[in-house]
């Protein structure tokens, strides 16, 4: 059998596949962050908490109301989105004119509150959520058994990412969004309802996080801390991709998933640090990130 | 005499992704002159300034200052040689007072800017000189005001005072009178005239009143290249310049 650095090529393919799965999560989460940063100029530290909320809402729906996976996939993100809108209206809207720092602090505080409340109610060890019947089992890809659910994660996340990218980069609405990002007051003076757009954007970003959460629920334990471990890596992804760049965060998310996957094989201890090494290198060479535009 | 020229550029070129913003500009600025750089919008004037102060890297060509090649030097180094610029969009230190703005510039000559263990009261001996400079531009009554609160025209005056504080050999002014009312324009014009006695000035200006009023030499740029050069009276009659820049109507020509 062929080997690369002592690892059978088949195993390596498997690892690449898995990297793509975790990359899908990174892509979805960083996409939401990028959209929110792009529009609101806010570094949304609460993103991990919103992701956790998505997963928890799916679990609660099943536990208390008997709502299954598929309806949850739509309902939980919707609920998280509405929650996002409430946050935006009640708090974030007062911070737009200020330095990034304040948005970061506020959302950091929010993340603590949300996570603290869930910990208080449900403890930290989490709740199990089973894989829906239709998606249990695995595909035999020849080089590995790929659980159907993981394959579904890749498909779903790519679809959502592509749709978002298309809307923002290729439609009129997208051009309004980008204009509003840069100079909200002037854009409003051209007759565009910027406050509404901003509100919906945050809601949408939050919903994306919620969606990722529901996708994650069957794959990992639904627990109050599931988001806080992820958030800082997702930040790194957004920065490497280029703050605010939609395509950047999608591609970087997937790419980093794969790189991290390979690190897990060759130097597993460093697999959570590799992202930062790449970030440091990228920022040295391309100051605005891989896909970011320099001013 | 060759070294009568304080600044010379030799076939300076700047390309942006295939678009040539400055092409083959060989500029010669005579010591002691007020030299104006004019030209239609997008001709490459600001780009030229950016090249001279190394805020942009030239694609090709050389820059010589006092006969020395400075093409490869860093922006701060060029400033220390005595080439100081102002910006097209106003550039002051907004939350420092007017006095402090000027002092920042004076401080450089004093040395010891890295002495973090020293008290800043050692800087107060610069105050007199700073106030003197401010008086020259008519800002002496605003000494303790925070710079943001100044009206636009005064900000430009402050910028000039700050630039003067460095006692530059060569001053680069990018549209010094833009956005000013008539009174301010007159004042700034007189000011430039006044400070030019001991130094050379290269300025970009669209206001023909200023250009015709104080410049000794004019270079007209168009589409990145030199279109004409000479004193105002000569350039203003050049049909190429009239077509590309000045226009025909009496109103535009002397506004």
């Amino acid at each position: 059998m062929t080997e690369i650095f002592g690892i059978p090529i088949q195993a390596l393919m498997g690892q690449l596949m898995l990297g793509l799965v975790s990359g899908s999560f990174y892509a979805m989460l960083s996409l939401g962050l990028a959209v929110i940063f792009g529009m609101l100029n806010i570094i949304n530290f609460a993103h991990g908490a919103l992701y956790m909320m998505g997963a928890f809402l799916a679990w609660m729906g099943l536990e208390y109301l008997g709502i299954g996976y598929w309806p949850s996939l739509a309902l939980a993100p919707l609920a998280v989105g509405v929650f996002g809108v409430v946050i935006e209206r009640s708090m974030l809207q007062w911070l737009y004119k200020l330095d990034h720092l304040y948005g970061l602090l506020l959302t950091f505080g929010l993340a603590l509150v949300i996570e603290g409340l869930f910990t208080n109610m449900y403890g930290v060890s989490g709740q199990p959520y089973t894989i829906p019947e239709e998606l249990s089992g695995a595909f035999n890809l020849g080089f590995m058994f790929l659980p159907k659910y993981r394959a579904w994660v890749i498909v779903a996340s790519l679809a959502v990412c592509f749709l978002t990218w298309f809307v923002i980069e290729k439609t009129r609405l997208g051009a309004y969004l980008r204009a509003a990002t840069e100079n909200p007051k002037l854009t409003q003076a051209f007759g565009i309802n910027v406050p509404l757009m901003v509100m919906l954007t945050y809601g949408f970003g939050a919903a994306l996080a919620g969606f990722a959460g529901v996708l994650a629920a069957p794959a990992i334990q639904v627990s109050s801390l599931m988001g806080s471990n992820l958030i800082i890596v997702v930040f790194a992804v957004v920065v490497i991709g280029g703050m605010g760049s939609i395509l950047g965060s999608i591609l970087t998310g997937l790419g980093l998933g794969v790189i991290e996957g390979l690190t897990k094989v060759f130097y597993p201890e460093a697999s959570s640090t590799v992202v930062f090494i790449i970030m440091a290198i990228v920022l040295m060479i391309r100051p605005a990130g891989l896909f970011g535009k320099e001013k | 005499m060759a070294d009568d020229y304080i600044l010379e550029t030799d076939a300076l070129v700047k390309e942006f992704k295939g678009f040539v913003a400055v092409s083959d500009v060989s500029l010669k600025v005579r010591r002691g002159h007020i030299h104006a750089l004019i030209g239609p919008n997008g001709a490459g004037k600001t780009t030229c300034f950016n090249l001279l102060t190394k805020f942009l890297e030239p694609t090709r060509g050389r820059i010589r200052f006092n006969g020395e090649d400075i093409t490869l030097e860093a922006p701060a180094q060029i400033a220390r040689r005595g080439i100081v610029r102002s910006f097209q969009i106003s550039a002051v230190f907004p939350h420092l007072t007017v006095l402090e703005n000027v002092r920042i510039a004076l401080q450089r000559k004093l040395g010891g800017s890295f002495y973090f263990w020293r008290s800043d009261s050692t800087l107060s001996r610069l105050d007199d000189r700073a106030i003197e400079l401010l008086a020259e531009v008519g800002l002496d009554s605003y000494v303790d005001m925070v710079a943001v609160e100044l009206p636009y025209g005064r900000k430009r005056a402050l910028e000039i005072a700050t630039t003067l504080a460095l006692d530059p050999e060569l001053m680069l002014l990018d549209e010094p009178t833009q956005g000013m009312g008539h009174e301010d324009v007159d004042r700034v014009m007189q000011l430039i005239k006044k400070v030019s006695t001991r130094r050379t000035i290269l300025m970009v200006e669209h206001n023909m009143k200023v250009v015709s009023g104080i410049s000794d030499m004019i270079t007209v740029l168009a589409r990145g290249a030199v279109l004409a050069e000479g004193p105002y009276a000569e350039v203003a009659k050049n049909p190429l310049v009239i077509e590309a820049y000045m226009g025909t109507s009496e109103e535009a020509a002397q506004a």
Partner: protein
Amino acid sequence: MSRRAIAYLMLLAAGLAAPFFIYPVLVMKVLCFALFACAFNLLLGYTGLLSFGHAAFFGAAAYVAGHAIKVWGLPTELGLLAGTIAAGALGWAVGSLAIRRTGIYFAMVTLALAQMIYFFFLEASFTGGEDGLQGVPRGALLGFIDLSNDLNLYYFVLAIFVFAFWLIYRTIHSPFGQILKAIRENEPRAISLGYDVAKYKLLAFVLSAALAGLAGATKMLVFKFATLTDAHWHLSGEVVLMTILGGMGTVFGPLVGSSVIVVLQNELADKVGSLVTVIMGSIFVICVLLFRRGIVGEIIAFYKRMLGQKA
């Protein structure tokens, strides 16, 4: 004597008297974090650079000083000095890479480098992993003042704090500090005036890192151990919060902010059970929404308004 001098003297008196009224170890902890926050503020508040990796310097100095004292048997003073210098050197390395970037990218580069440093501490054997470098003796000052006595140690820590605080104050109000302010306000203009901006930023970064290190080393001495939490990014985040909560760009802000947070952490520990994170989170939310200038910043603003009305 000026009003300001009187205020400083009163604060100093309060510092001298504090251990007789408040539990001295707690006050020492407050002082260490206050120093950390002040050092951080030198960078954020006065240079406009948000470092998101300052815990790396704090932790590195704690480990180096701890190792020097415990394993190499260095005297306490030299141990602290070693830690401070190590942090400064690390600051120089991180700083020279990071200052090439600005804004959020600067923050992210510092975070990335700090994560690598953290990874090193995690893997290196001398740090003891998550168990920490434990049982560092406090030793004796100048060889004869026994520092295992809390009160002796307290005055030593207070002296360190006052010295460092003075140094920071001096730096802010020095010719160098003026240039830093100018750079923060308008960087291209500062360049065009002939200042080599990178050098100034780097010096500020190194100073800040070294003082953060001094804080870390001192904290190590107080508690006799250094652990991974000292270098974790949570602490980097916490110091940002302390600074903002107190009021960034004010001289006393970091002092107040860190006191509030350290005391809260200590007080809430046995009162609210698992609600502690909720309460901390709410405080930040409220602070950002209502007291944006931070505690000290709001007081100054209020004072100015009062003066303005009278005038």
